[in-house]
């Protein structure tokens, strides 16, 4: 089975190479065949792997292709490693990836750069698989930056619009800041353990760092920095909304389902290290809670449907971070999987709507699509229910409820975090309901020009099925004991320990359900029952200010612009001519001035020269005499 591992990244890579080399000359059918086929093949391999891991969940597969660099004891290899944690990610990447590729076949078909799109998507899948399967940090870093590159190329895919290029560079630069932190963390780890092998580090760390909490703190903080950048968490979160400039399949695959959860993967993968640094775990939980609130408020007031989804993604990843922070490892991964399904579905459906309404992004100009696009309506509804965590029926309820419960009862849980998460649940339900109401109810404001075809509909249906079924993989403990998902992950992630609590899980579930309904009702009240109330409220200046604040994402863009971008631009513009070169130039001009003034002495007058000679002679003689 281990020998199959290399096929996983190899298929997408082959697709990428083929499409890059000869894509321009192929017909769009062939491009689609290569692009989708490579991911599908990878998906089949991952299913085979998954089935065999299901049978023997305690095993792991590893395979080293070649030694990358070999200097003394620094020997990172091109080594692949798959255990149950990696398997969950592999499954999501390849299956959701394949579905999104099928969707993209139709979505991007008319684009002149169809083959470029497909090749970038294939490269992305390859890099993401490498990230997840890497057995050492250097290879993980290769995948880590590789997905960043693909994200850059795909956000700026429609390159003629400068704003897209700006968004792409913003995303790349901000995530790179995190990447640097990760790289430094890697160096630290290398000098601690003389190796970059993840399994080895995880095995050695508890013993070696038992007496050095300081080191564990620094290293985990550095790793966390990398995770924050990639997963768009506070304070490196504000690149993600702009990243929606890319085509919708890109947003679905990269900026919702897979790449942005790389940070979650990293922290889960290195859980043994983070457990040694409780302070950092607490920090992760706080960051997650803060992010989910910040992004939740922002999602509440957006006009652009994709920006709502972007902020919602940030907020949901915030939940995952919260879960990681309180030590609910499996809950975080479960939410990751469920979120990947429903958020990919939401983005794909949103893309279909935007396409159908002729590139209309503004939700206030949609409306009434319930009857016009029934398939999209039903799939969107299923996904939205999951996002809003509608009790019992939706997958989101099962995954989010777990997180909420552990936030209170988990090892590092506390009531403050719990209440923040509850408010987040309310916000989620509110913005989801708002989005549904604006898009599908009310009066139609735009013409439906192009309903989606089969290749776009099919992935929506399959994802809707996955979304509805995924929740039943893991039931809350107070229902009945059926938890195949966390049992499967048990070999790679520790169980979540629960502390004694005077508060039962049932009450928490009821609370969460109430929050969902209250949130949904608020949206229903303002956007359906009393739609005239909002303009009235906007006349209150503080409410208008709040709306602007949230719409602009709490002005983080402006803050960073003021703190970093402007000073950088100012300094570089000032120093364009290079002060050091200026110093040398002034040396030259000083020499020239001196030479010019000395050359005045050479007047051409012979008598003047004689005078000079005589004076010189007299001077020398008198010196001779005097000294």
């Amino acid at each position, binding site marked *: 089975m281990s020998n199959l591992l290399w096929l996983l990244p190899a298929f997408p890579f082959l697709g990428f190479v083929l499409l890059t080399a000869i894509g321009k000359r192929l017909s769009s059918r062939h491009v689609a065949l290569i692009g989708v086929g490579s991911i599908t093949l990878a998906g089949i391999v991952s299913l085979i792997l998954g089935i065999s891991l299901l049978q023997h969940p305690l095993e792991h597969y590893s395979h080293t292709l070649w030694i990358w660099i070999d200097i003394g004891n620094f020997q990172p290899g091109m080594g692949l490693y798959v255990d149950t944690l990696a398997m969950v990610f592999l499954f999501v990447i390849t299956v959701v990836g394949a579905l999104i590729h099928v969707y993209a076949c139709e979505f991007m078909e008319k684009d002149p750069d169809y083959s470029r799109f497909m090749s970038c998507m294939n490269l992305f899948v390859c890099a993401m698989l490498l990230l997840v399967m890497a057995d050492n940090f250097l290879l993980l870093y290769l995948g880590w930056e590789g997905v960043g590159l693909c994200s850059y190329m795909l956000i700026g895919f429609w390159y003629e619009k400068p704003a897209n290029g700006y968004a792409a560079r913003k995303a790349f630069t901000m995530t790179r800041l995190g990447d640097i932190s990760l790289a430094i963390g890697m160096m630290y780890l290398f000098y601690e353990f003389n190796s970059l092998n993840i399994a080895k580090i995880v095995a050695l760390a508890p013993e070696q760092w038992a007496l050095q909490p300081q080191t564990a703190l620094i290293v985990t903080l550095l790793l966390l920095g990398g995770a924050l950048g990639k997963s768009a968490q506070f304070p490196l979160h504000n690149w993600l909304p702009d990243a929606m400039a890319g085509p919708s399949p890109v947003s679905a695959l990269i900026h919702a389902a897979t790449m942005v959860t790389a940070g979650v993967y990293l922290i889960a993968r290195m859980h043994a290290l983070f457990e040694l640094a409780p302070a950092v775990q607490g920090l992760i939980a706080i960051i997650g809670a803060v992010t989910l609130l910040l992004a939740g408020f922002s999602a509440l007031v957006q006009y652009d449907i994709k920006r709502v989804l972007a902020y919602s993604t940030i907020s949901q990843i915030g939940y995952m971070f919260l879960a990681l922070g309180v030590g609910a490892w499996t809950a975080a991964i479960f939410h990751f999987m469920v979120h990947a399904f429903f958020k990919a579905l939401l983005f794909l459906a949103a893309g279909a709507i935007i396409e159908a309404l002729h590139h209309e992004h503004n939700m206030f100009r949609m409306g009434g699509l319930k009857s016009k696009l029934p398939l999209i309506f039903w799939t969107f509804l299923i996904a939205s229910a999951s996002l809003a965590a509608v009790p019992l029926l939706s997958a989101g309820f099962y995954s989010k409820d777990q997180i909420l419960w552990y936030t209170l009862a988990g090892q590092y849980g506390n009531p403050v975090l719990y209440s923040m998460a509850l408010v987040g649940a309310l916000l989620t339900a509110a913005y989801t309901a708002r989005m549904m109401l604006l898009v599908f109810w009310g009066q139609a404001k735009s013409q439906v020009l192009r309903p989606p075809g089969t290749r776009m509909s099919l992935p929506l249906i399959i994802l809707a099925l996955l979304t509805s079924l995924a929740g039943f993989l893991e039931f809350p403990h107070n229902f009945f004991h059926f938890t195949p998902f966390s049992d499967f992950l048990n070999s790679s992630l520790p169980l979540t320990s629960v502390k004694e609590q005077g508060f039962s899980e049932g009450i928490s579930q009821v609370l969460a359900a109430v929050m969902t309904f209250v949130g949904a009702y608020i949206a229903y009240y303002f956007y359906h029952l009393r739609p005239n109330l909002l303009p009235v409220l906007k006349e209150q200046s503080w409410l208008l200010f709040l709306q602007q604040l949230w719409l602009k994402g709490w002005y983080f863009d402006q803050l960073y612009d003021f703190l970093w971008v402007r000073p950088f631009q100012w300094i570089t513009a000032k120093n364009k001519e290079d002060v050091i070169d200026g110093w040398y130039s002034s040396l030259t001009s000083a020499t020239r001035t001196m030479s010019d003034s000395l*050359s*005045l*002495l*050479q*007047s*051409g*007058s*012979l*008598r003047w020269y*004689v*005078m000079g000679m*005589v004076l010189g002679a007299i001077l020398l003689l008198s010196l001779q005499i005097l000294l």
Partner: protein
Amino acid sequence: MNTPDNIESILLLAALLFCIGMAGVMIRKNILFMLLSVEVMLNASGLAFIAAGAYWGQPDGQVMFLFILAMAAAEVSIGLALILQIYHLHRSLDIDKIKEMNG
């Protein structure tokens, strides 16, 4: 050979001659006179050489004088040739009018 007693006065004369020549070079505008003044200076140094040679009883002074004589002859011939050429070109021997080589 007998040594001259009044070597100081001879050297004084040489110095006087040298200064006269030097003043001529510096003051005269006519290039011909400048050349003449240079000759005076050369001869002044020749006189000093001879006096010193006689004082020390060495032949070197006279050898140097012969050398200066030969050099002065060569210099005058080239110098006069140059002056002729300058006059030919500029129709003037005024040194201040023909300064062309300045930096």
